[in-house]
């Protein structure tokens, strides 16, 4: 794995289309420029329209990007794959380093509590929840379980077992189409908050601070290209 020296990185692109809302962000020496959107359909079109606009506005070209942060999932299969097809192609063309974000850890990091149990969850595929348990003490996050995927029904049962835990927090990221599911799940936790993107420096630090904590499965297999993180490997 190549080591990226922070001082060399002047322009960083962040791509997260793993789950709505999608995010595209560019950090330059002048500041951080972000866009979030809810893709209705045809992500393959909207992503490119947005990336072209974002880079053009900052007078940047794909070749001028020094590093790319990408969320390889868990998330929507198609959204994750479109992002990885894009960043892996840029990596191939310009040898741009690609760093995987840990989507569930990112959600847990943004949870507001200082100390205690956190369940980070993503709902982006109908009747399927991806989640992971953490313990947070100040800014240190310790994973209590590996990432898991389960049906909505099983996740509801799981929530019922942890809701007695003191200070338990569910931090949640979901597409707008899953609002009815949220209501059912939220009843199990004393504190629940929906994850939302915020633009600006604070947002970037959250992202950058937690990147590269988990390497993608493909990297472990020796591939230099990033693979999606599937919680459902067997079809």
């Amino acid at each position: 794995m190549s080591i990226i020296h922070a001082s060399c990185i002047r322009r960083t692109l962040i791509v997260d289309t793993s789950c709505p809302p999608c995010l595209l962000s560019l950090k330059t020496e002048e500041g951080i420029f972000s866009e979030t959107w809810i893709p209705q359909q045809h992500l393959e079109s909207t992503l490119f329209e947005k990336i072209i606009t974002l880079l053009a506005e900052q007078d940047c070209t794909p070749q001028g990007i020094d590093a790319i942060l990408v969320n390889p999932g868990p998330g929507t299969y198609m959204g994750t794959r479109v992002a990885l097809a894009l960043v892996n192609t840029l990596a191939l063309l310009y040898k741009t380093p690609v760093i995987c974000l840990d989507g569930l850890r990112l959600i847990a990091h943004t949870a507001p509590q200082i100390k205690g149990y956190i369940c980070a969850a993503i709902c982006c595929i109908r009747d399927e929840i991806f989640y992971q348990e953490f313990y947070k003490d100040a800014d240190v996050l310790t994973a209590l379980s590996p990432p898991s995927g389960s049906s909505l029904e099983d996740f509801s049962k799981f929530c019922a077992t942890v809701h007695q835990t003191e200070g338990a927090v569910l931090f949640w990221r979901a597409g707008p189409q899953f609002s009815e599911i949220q209501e059912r799940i939220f009843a199990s936790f004393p504190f629940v908050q929906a994850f939302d993107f915020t633009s600006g420096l604070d947002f970037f630090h959250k992202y950058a601070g937690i990147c590269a904590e988990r390497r993608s499965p493909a990297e472990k297999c020796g591939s230099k290209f990033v693979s999606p993180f599937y919680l459902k490997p067997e079809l």
Partner: protein
Amino acid sequence: MPSSPPSSLGLAIDTSFDDTSLAVLSGIWRADHVQDMHLHSHITLSQSHTHQRFGGVVPERAARQHLEVIHPLLEEVMEQAGVEFSALDWIAVTHMPGLVGSLLIGMTVAKTLSYALQIPLLGINHVEAHPYACFLSGTCFVYPILHLIVAGGHTVLILQRDPEEWHSIGRTRDDSAGECADKVARLFGLPMPGGKYVDAAAQAVSELCYIFPKPFLKESHFDFSFSGLKSALQRFVQAHPEAPQDSVLAAFMHSMQVVLLEKTFRAARKYNVQMVTLSGGFGASVTLRNAFRERAAKEGIAFACPTPHFCTDNAAMIGVLGLRHYATGCFETMRLRACPNLPLPSPGFPTGESDVP
């Protein structure tokens, strides 16, 4: 004296179904052939073994596999071609028809390359590209021309009176020929894709022992329907389990061949075409190719088919059509979308038979 257009170099990508295919090729597009055609490199990685146990292609599995392999293959195809990305003039990619999840992988890679390298993006209709595989073996088209495309998911008859005009005059109303052959092969427990086993049986049997229906043979239109033939065979096998497999498959193949042959050449006579082509995965069938060649010779019509290697899904044919799109300025924007179906009318197939002037 008008200057001749320069040769262009392009990269073609096809991820429409279960094969990841990439090609680098160059040439000069002419109306009836490609001048100085050079296929610099061509790689196709089939996923058939990974779908074998499911008895058909699993869309999610196919999309995952495409993403796993496309970038290493892209590196490989460029290395084999001995060209730098910066030397490319265009990128051609299949955007219809196919499995959406699979199409999106190739399209995203192509769009990224087009955007980053600032070269034209060419959107290719996979079915339309099949006959153009004939150009890879140096064939010249003679217009008017009739194309029978027997691809995995589609069976279509296309009339092309000149290089810019396309008319779909017939298509399958249910199963395509190749799809039907695959299903019949599966009925006998033969591996996928089963078309080649059906074809092998037809070659091995010299005398027909059974007779199966020949759907739509007597109809005046040029549409096809093969699902009834498949059902007839299914019922026959249930009633006659002792019937030798090869003989049954040969009789099935014969029915299919008669329908394809008769309808194609009836259309050829009606529209007075000078040439007939046979392409698409099922067009690799030796039985079908021989029958078409023989019949064309008898009727005094020129005949062409791609080499068997280029009948199945491949990026080289996408590249050949890419040469045409590039030469005619048919460029796409980043708004190009994946389309799972073959809409009629569509850019490649503007009209039905009733609209043929």
